[in-house]
């Protein structure tokens, strides 16, 4: 009895294999004969052996053998039909290309900006935005650039009137938010900014920035470092080298610039097109919110502290994708843009 069951199972498996290899009528007939031939068919044999079983065992075994026989017959019929259909009579080259769907591609800057946003959103930051045409007050004065201060020269400005300008950074949004929201504040502010720059491979009169701001009691420089390190390691990779060095921005004190180690030359190539040979790439400006900025938004700098940072989306994307000319972003050549479908 056990022997019989084992063979039923064995034939079931073997049949599956045999039928899957059938490619024409001849081989189909061979399979049919192997299992169902009246004289030598495997299933025919099994049915014959039924007789040798005891009356108790007989009905169960008979049922199983008949099931197998039916399955085989159905399969043989199905395959026979297939072999007669045009699909098999006129053979089709299945290695011909499949149908593609034309999908639109995101612009690399938007894509990269979203990548940056997503990292901060996961860290609990909210997204805020502000106007692109700004007043001198929000763009400069509230950020501790006194009128006539030479620091303003570092932010080459396009003016609409004496008081109205195209914002040179997304930092004015800091002021707009702090004016209406009490700490704790944890926000990023992405957007378009403008500078009076003649276009060349690394400068454009319009580009994109993401600004960040964290304000609360007890926020310190170590927190600034911790946040930006997590950010940069997530955006690039865990092993990236990060350097904080002192710098100057009117709206932060102490101020810092954050460089990452050149991934192209590792600082080895004096002619490196990415880092210019010094091994580091400037990625972020940052610092502790200047006490004067807090005073300008009626927040007590003794009670609250905070840090702010900003990075150029275009510049960082150039570095990340090793794009050598920033103008590529705004030519909107689809051969350029559509590569980012795969990103």
């Amino acid at each position: 009895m056990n022997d019989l069951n084992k063979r039923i199972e064995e034939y079931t498996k073997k049949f599956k294999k045999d039928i899957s290899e059938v490619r024409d009528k001849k081989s189909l007939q061979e399979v049919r004969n192997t299992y169902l031939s009246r004289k030598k068919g495997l299933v025919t044999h099994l049915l014959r052996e039924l007789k040798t079983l005891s009356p108790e065992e007989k009905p169960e075994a008979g049922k199983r053998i008949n099931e197998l026989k039916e399955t085989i017959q159905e399969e043989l019929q199905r395959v026979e039909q297939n072999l007669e259909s045009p699909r098999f009579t006129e053979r089709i080259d299945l290695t011909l290309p499949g149908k593609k769907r034309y999908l639109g591609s995101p612009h690399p800057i938007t894509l990269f900006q979203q990548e940056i946003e997503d990292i901060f959103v996961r860290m609990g930051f909210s997204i805020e935005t502000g106007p692109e045409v700004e007043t001198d007050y929000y763009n400069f004065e509230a950020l501790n650039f006194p009128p006539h201060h030479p620091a303003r020269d570092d932010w080459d400005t396009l003016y609409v009137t004496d008081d109205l300008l195209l914002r040179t950074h997304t930092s004015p949004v800091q002021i707009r938010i702090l004016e209406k929201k009490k700490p704790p504040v944890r926000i990023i502010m992405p957007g378009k900014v403008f500078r009076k720059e003649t276009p060349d491979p690394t400068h454009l009169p319009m580009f994109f920035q993401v600004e960040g701001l964290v304000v609360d009691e007890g926020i310190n420089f170590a927190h600034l470092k911790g946040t930006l390190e997590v950010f940069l390691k997530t955006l690039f990779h865990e092993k990236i080298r990060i350097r904080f060095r002192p710098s100057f921005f009117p709206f932060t004190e102490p101020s810092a610039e954050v460089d990452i180690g050149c991934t192209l030359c590792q600082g080895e190539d004096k002619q490196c097109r990415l880092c210019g040979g010094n091994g580091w790439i400037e990625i972020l400006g940052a610092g502790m919110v200047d006490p004067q900025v807090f005073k300008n938004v009626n927040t007590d700098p003794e009670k609250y502290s905070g840090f702010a940072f900003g990075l150029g989306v275009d510049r960082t994307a150039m570095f990340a994708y090793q794009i050598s000319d920033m103008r590529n972003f705004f030519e909107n050549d689809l051969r350029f843009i559509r590569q980012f479908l795969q990103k």
Partner: protein
Amino acid sequence: MRISVNWLKDYIDFNVSTSELIDRLNNIGLLVDEWEETEEDVILELETYANRPDTLGHLGVARELGAGLGAYLRPKEWPLIEADEKTSDLVDIQVSDETLCPRYCGIIIKGVKVGPSPSWLKKRVKAIGLRPVNNVVDVTNYVVFSTAHPVHAFDLAKISGEKIMVRRAKKGEVLKTLEEEDIALSPEMLVIADSQKPVALAGIIGGENSSITEETQDVFIESAYFDPVSIRKTRKKTGIQTDASYRFERGADISFPPQAALMTASLLSQMGGEAAQQVVDIYPKPRKNKTVVLRNHRISKLLGMDIRRDFIERILAKLGFHIENKSPESWQVKIPFFRVDIDREADLIEEVARFYGYDKVPSVFPPLKDVEPGFDQKRARINELRQSLFHYGFNEVLNFSFSAPEKEVKFHTGRAAIEIKNPISSKASLLRTNLMDGILENIIWNRNRGAGGVHVFEIGNIYFWKNEKYGEELRLALATTGMIEETHWAESPQETDFFHLKGTVEAFMSKLRYEPFIFKEENHPYFEPGFSLLLYYKGEMIGGLGLVRKDICKNYFLDEDVWGAELSLKSLFEKQPQPFRYTPVSRFPCVRRDISFLADKDIYFQEIKEALEKLNIPYLDRFELYDRYTGSSIPQDKASLSLRFIFCHPRRTLQAEEVDRFQQRIIHTLKTKFGFQLREGG
């Protein structure tokens, strides 16, 4: 700022490799952009900051580096060979505007032999990238680039009336500069004048009429402190920027003019001149040093770590700060005049931090507490919109916000464009009032580069004046032209058309649940009359779509049909979309009825749709136009329309008779209202 390493060694002793030197400077915030090793020197190109005029000379850089390396500045002697007379015997100096010139010093050197500089001086001058001129000019340059304090040399013989007057310019006065350029002076500018005429634009540039020449014998050296804002305004107005104006504008050291004068005099007297006795020093209101209180606990609080007291005190001392008073908790720090950037406690904390080393501050992820999670509806909608557009094969582009009047005028947007006062070029002299211009540029760019079809969109602001206020409006523009890729061997190539564009618009409007939306065939300035639809939501016009006008396309050398749309996302997002609602799926079979009609061609489908919707047929789940035919088998003014109606009842199977009744109502309405004829078999 070019820095010579040899020159630094005049002030401090150090012996480190170039790469270590660069690292040290970078770590304290003096960024070395580039460097160059010559045979006997190393030249560093240093990035300096607007608030640190003290680092615009080798002395200041040496002081910083010394603090970083643990070395004190070496004092330097400036011996004089003195003449018999006093400076004040030889010239009468008067300052009539103390606000613009709070301090003015001068000294006369007699019998200077103008000629080539000694080789050590030539080397220094060349090291910072200047050309040696003569000993007097080279000495003044040497003093500026050593101390960051500008000094100016006048030919005393050319000063009329032995009089130096520091005064505001008079209207109509003109100064011919050393560069032979005539500057029209005005009363807000400060000048140095003799009894008759201006001889220099104070703190900016000398006049040709008092300049040093080969014949010069006696020299008057000016060493002053000028008001930074006044210098900046004059510099901007005249467009003349010099090494002197650059430093005065950022703030010179008001305590330093006498020393700079003596240093200059000493150097010139070593080259054959004799210095008159005593520097004249006009400083009517001497200033007091600022003092700032630095509290130990604030350092820890702001940096997130403790720093040892002895380190703090040592660094402050090396940087030239003087601790006047201290308690276990705080220091009272006197700020030297050369540190114009230090006003507050935070400024001193930065000094401590930068010499302690930013790299030694730990990295700590801040505690995330108590911040309301913000959710930006607008951004979420923009993203959904973008996804729909990608799905329909539109690629995202980003164009500059700049435009030109001749471009804007063609779109007749009815918006007053914002002009830029100081544009980078006339082609970018104003801000765009439409997005379509950029899109058309993108189309021709890609067509010229072999693209068979171009399907693009941009989301961005337009800008305009409205009632004397500036405005920004978020818009979406999209356009499609040419072939719809991808080509496939099993299908014939397909060209884009208006309904591809419209389908896309309908899809995202529906995806964002801005329903019901309405299209009306009305004119739009960008689109050909008769090929132009306006889109309405909740009664407001949101934008238009259609065939971009041929006369507009011509400007871009675009001959083919461009189907475009431009919508105001601002208007749309200000309105509420429909709330999302789920409807249970009926477990009972739905009934489908297909009906074909002959209809007049000039009946708008929109009207048919509205009429059918108004009927309120019970259990009519939806209806759609599944075929439209015009051609030889039907009259020329007619179209055959095939409509499919789907009826579903949520709780039971619909009876054929009741659906027949609904169908009759539909047919009746379409017949009577629009004159439809039922087609056989329909």
